[in-house]
């Protein structure tokens, strides 16, 4: 492999290490990284431990090898949305907005993270922070956790999560009323691909009063969602 000059800054070194872990693959050891990057061993040890402390890298069970952590996926947020809406899909979404009133947002689920595809311009997202860090407190997050393909470490979220997940699965939609803001709530329905995999969600932010009887509202959102998903996925 071609040797490159050692990076000048810690940040440069950190990215060089992440890149090397991606290139070499899971299980790469510090010794391999030192050899491949040409950086000083003590610098590599320090940066690797800092990256592991921040959970961009994870130490494998033998304590020697490393793999990229899930948190690396956060870096991709700066790449912008992974999904762009066609003109037809956008028109269909606007039609749904006119029909249901309230803040209707379209989000996608990829790598078990929420990415906003199209925000309702009139209504900002309730609590983007909560959505990312405590998804189980939001309707969008609950729907994601309930429909995730891989098993989640539910204990990492909340003790009440299994119950929440059961409710979402039984009803076919996720709801949150008065939990983040008094008098307001959110209802999210899934958008699935032809194989039934949930890839995105439509979420309606509205008053608690309208969410008092959610089944009818969910039914309407499901209808919009079904047509919209035919245009997207």
């Amino acid at each position, binding site marked *: 492999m071609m040797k490159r000059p050692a990076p000048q800054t810690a940040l440069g070194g950190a990215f060089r290490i992440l890149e090397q872990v991606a290139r070499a*693959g899971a299980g790469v*050891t510090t010794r391999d990284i030192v050899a491949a990057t040409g950086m000083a061993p003590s610098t590599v040890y320090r940066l690797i431990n800092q990256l592991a402390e921040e959970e961009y890298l994870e130490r494998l069970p033998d304590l020697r090898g490393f793999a*990229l952590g899930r948190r690396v996926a956060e870096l991709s947020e700066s790449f912008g949305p992974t999904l762009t809406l066609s003109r037809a899909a956008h028109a269909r979404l606007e039609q749904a907005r006119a029909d249901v009133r309230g803040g209707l947002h379209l989000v996608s689920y990829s790598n078990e993270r929420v990415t906003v595809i199209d925000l309702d311009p009139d209504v900002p997202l309730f609590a983007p922070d909560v959505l990312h860090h405590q998804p189980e407190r939001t309707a969008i997050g609950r729907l994601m956790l309930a429909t995730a393909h891989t098993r989640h470490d539910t204990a990492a979220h909340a003790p009440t999560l299994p119950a929440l997940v059961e409710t979402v699965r039984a009803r076919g939609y996720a709801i949150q009323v008065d939990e983040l803001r008094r008098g307001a709530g959110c209802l999210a329905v899934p958008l699935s691909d032809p194989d039934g995999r949930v890839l995105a969600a439509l979420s309606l932010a509205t008053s608690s009063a309208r969410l008092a009887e959610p089944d009818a509202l969910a039914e309407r959102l499901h209808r919009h969602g079904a047509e919209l998903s035919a245009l997207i996925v």
Partner: protein
Amino acid sequence: MSELVNVIRDPSSGRVADAASLSAVGDRSPLDGLDRRSLTPLDVFAQSAAAVGPAGVAVAIPAILASTAGSSALWALVLAGALTVLVSWAVNQYTRRMGSSGSLYTFTVKSLGPNVGALSGAALALGYSAVILFSLIGSTLVIIRWLGIGDTSVTRWATAGVFVLLAAAVAALAVRTVRRSTRTALVIEVIAIVIIVAVTIWFLVVIDAPPVFEVTSLPTGADAPAFLTAVALAMTGFVGFESAASLAPETRRPRINVPRAIRWTVPVALGVFVLSMYAETAGVRAVGHGMGMPHGPGTALPGTFSAPIAAYVLDLAVVGSMFTAALAHTTALARLIMTAGREGVLPRRLGRLHPTLRTPATAVVVIWLGLVPPATVLLLQADPWSVALKVLVCAVLGFLVAYVLVCAGVAPFLHRIGEWTWSAVVGAGAATVALLGIIAVYAAHIAPESWPVLVGAGAFLTAASGAMIWRRVRGGLRIGLYDQVVGSDLLTAPQRASR
């Protein structure tokens, strides 16, 4: 950085360098079931700070040090603090890289192997349980004195009653969610420290204390043995600083927050100790006595100078500090027992957690039951306080043995994981040598009076670690469980990567 971008866009394209090490990644941590990532940085700091119990130690230790090293006692304390900083740095070589409810026991298994690890586990268990016993007996005795029950036939019943109530309160708090128990410990310990610092400053003002350098002196060559003894005794005041390590699986960003809690506990405790040591030395110079309790609980602020209210407030701080120390060490001991239970070194049932509270409830109950017989014996003694102090000697020995093993393990550990550096190895080597010296000086100091305690502690360590080794070998058990990475922590899940 195209490869990084590719794998972020499509995690299933992740490459594999070492399939064997990746295949060891499971769906669940071996310490699964704890209330993961529920503790904030402040909570884990509370665990370490409460385990040290700076308020209680600050009242008790200055008189002991002053009677050993005289006017150079303050510098013995500072040197002991510096040594403890070095030991805490060695402990953090592990906590930055792994987390385990088994704390130093698990670290030693991972560095010096399962047999030495068993010794560490036994030593930690001895230290934890002896501190719990000492703290509960100490606070019981102060409360009994408050109640004003003299030396009558009801004393024993009242003492037993107070002890059982305190122990039940500790057990109940330890079983509740880990966050509630650390928060409770934090509040009580902060109040206790504020009281100690306020009363100490008030004392210094009232006696019009002379400047530090007038009342203290650096040790001379002739004082060396006494000075070193004082350093060893002072170091005992810091034990428990590593306690945050046992909560790593329950902490947010544990590899940042646990080392930080351990790193900050020692200087904070040292600050409180130095202030009260200064008050002691200045007090002896100015009014003939300090403000501590040289002869047991109930003698705080002696002499003509004292205001009764200050003595009560000080006692309150001591009781609070002892109570939180008992709580913090119960929390740590329960997690140690739970880890050994999961490994099978102790009965598997002890590895169970409470299904909703997510705490090692079975282990807490076992600790509580285990405390009753020795406590009964101790409280029936004619002078329970002096017996309690002997228990404390046990505790200190347990901790020092565990510390020396963890320091000695740094070099093999770093070698094993391929991160060996000279600075780490030299630092840890210095800490090991210093600790061995401290243990020798401490043992020599207490041997004439407390040799049965030394023999008893040695016998316990031999028997307990022997039993652990026997169970491990007979059962073919793999020990050293820690909170290892699970598939959902990785960008590329193992099953997808291996496809």
